[in-house]
């Protein structure tokens, strides 16, 4: 239990939270969209600085704001991955407020911000969108081709030790 860490994935519906977990845990991706009902739980063992960490990943059904998700799902979390969809501004317009309220609820819990679906952008669009994202210190990734997915989770895992 000492090296088990509860990690929760939050973000709007359809941003690709479940796909990110599937890519990270099983190295699989499916184009079929199936909405998550309630919560699904997966587990991945990772080695961080020579230490084995068991990440128990709570993939919580997407909501427009995390406040609609029961607090008891979030309590006891050791880390958070907050996912946005780079193509849908509605998924990140109020991200600052969301992060701030999460920090109030779970003080000192590390949060990694992940901007997903970059595979759907051309190089030009990517530069344009990235320049306009109201975020700093985030990971650009693609659940579809696996780009930076491992990095995002590993970044969080490192901050959990």
């Amino acid at each position, binding site marked *: *239990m*000492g090296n*088990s860490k*509860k990690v929760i994935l939050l973000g709007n519906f359809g941003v690709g939270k479940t796909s990110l977990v599937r890519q990270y845990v099983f190295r699989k991706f499916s184009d079929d969209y199936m909405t998550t009902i*309630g*919560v699904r*739980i*997966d*587990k991945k063992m990772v080695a961080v600085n020579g230490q084995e960490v*068991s990440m*128990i990943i*709570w993939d919580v059904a997407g909501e427009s704001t995390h406040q609609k998700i*029961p607090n*008891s*799902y979030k*309590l*006891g*979390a*050791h880390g958070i991955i907050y996912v946005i969809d780079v193509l849908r501004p509605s998924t990140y317009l109020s991200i600052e407020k969301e992060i701030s309220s999460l920090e109030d609820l779970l003080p000192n819990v590390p949060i990694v911000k992940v901007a997903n679906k970059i595979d759907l952008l051309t190089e030009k669009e990517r530069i344009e969108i990235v320049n306009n994202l109201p975020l700093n210190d985030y990971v650009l990734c693609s659940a579809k081709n696996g780009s930076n997915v491992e990095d995002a989770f590993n970044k969080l895992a490192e901050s959990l030790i």
Partner: protein
Amino acid sequence: MDKQKFEVLKDILFEDARKRNEELDNKVKAIDEIISDRAKLEPRIAPILEDQVHYLEKNFPTLFGAAITASIRKQIKDSQDEVVDALYPIIGKMIKKYISLELARLSERIDRQLDRAFSWEGWIRRIKAWFGGVDERDLIMTELAQPELEEVFVIQQESGLLMGSYSKHQTLDQDMVAGMLTAIKTFVKEAFPGGYQELETIEYENYKIIINNLKSFYVAVVISGNMNTDFKMKLDDIMTDFEQQVMEKYLGDKENFSEDQLTELIKANFGKLNNGE
């Protein structure tokens, strides 16, 4: 010459004072000797202390009653969960014993009624029970599956992380089961709010998950087959004892209480169920 005379005069004038001084000095030495020697001091102060103890015994409720009552009331109010955790094993056992006794009485009354009733089924069952040397009610249960302990999980309340477990088959990842059970519990709590209520059982076909909630952790026990009263009572007793042991050890030394230690504790306690002890 004058000095000599002055000394003589001083001796005459202060002789009484010197004597008093010497007497006082001797008294102080005697008192000091008594105080420093326990054997000498005890007989002198014992009667006084005894009187005081009697006085306190007699007047304790008047002197301290109000303050103690107020303090206990405040303590209970400030830490209700801890009080519930501390009292749970004792009160739980008391209530269970009382209910068991009452149920046994009720069962005896029903038996008396049944004995009076006349039916072929009843006679056949009775004959079978008599030949088999078993209780009539238990005979009905033997037709169905025997209850058996499948898995035990000890899970942290908030995070849903597994603290320790026991499994007969090791079919599923236990960490994920612990997480899912917590998510289900959380869902039920959120969906049907209302005071201090918790999910206590989950049933699916031949399996039953019994959940016992404490403040910082909960115990989930998976049973297959049909639970008869004996098995349920035995399980309740084991759960109560086990939870008490975990609380003493886990809450006493959270840092050093390992998953292995907990697993051993689970095996030692719940193993009795399948061993028929």
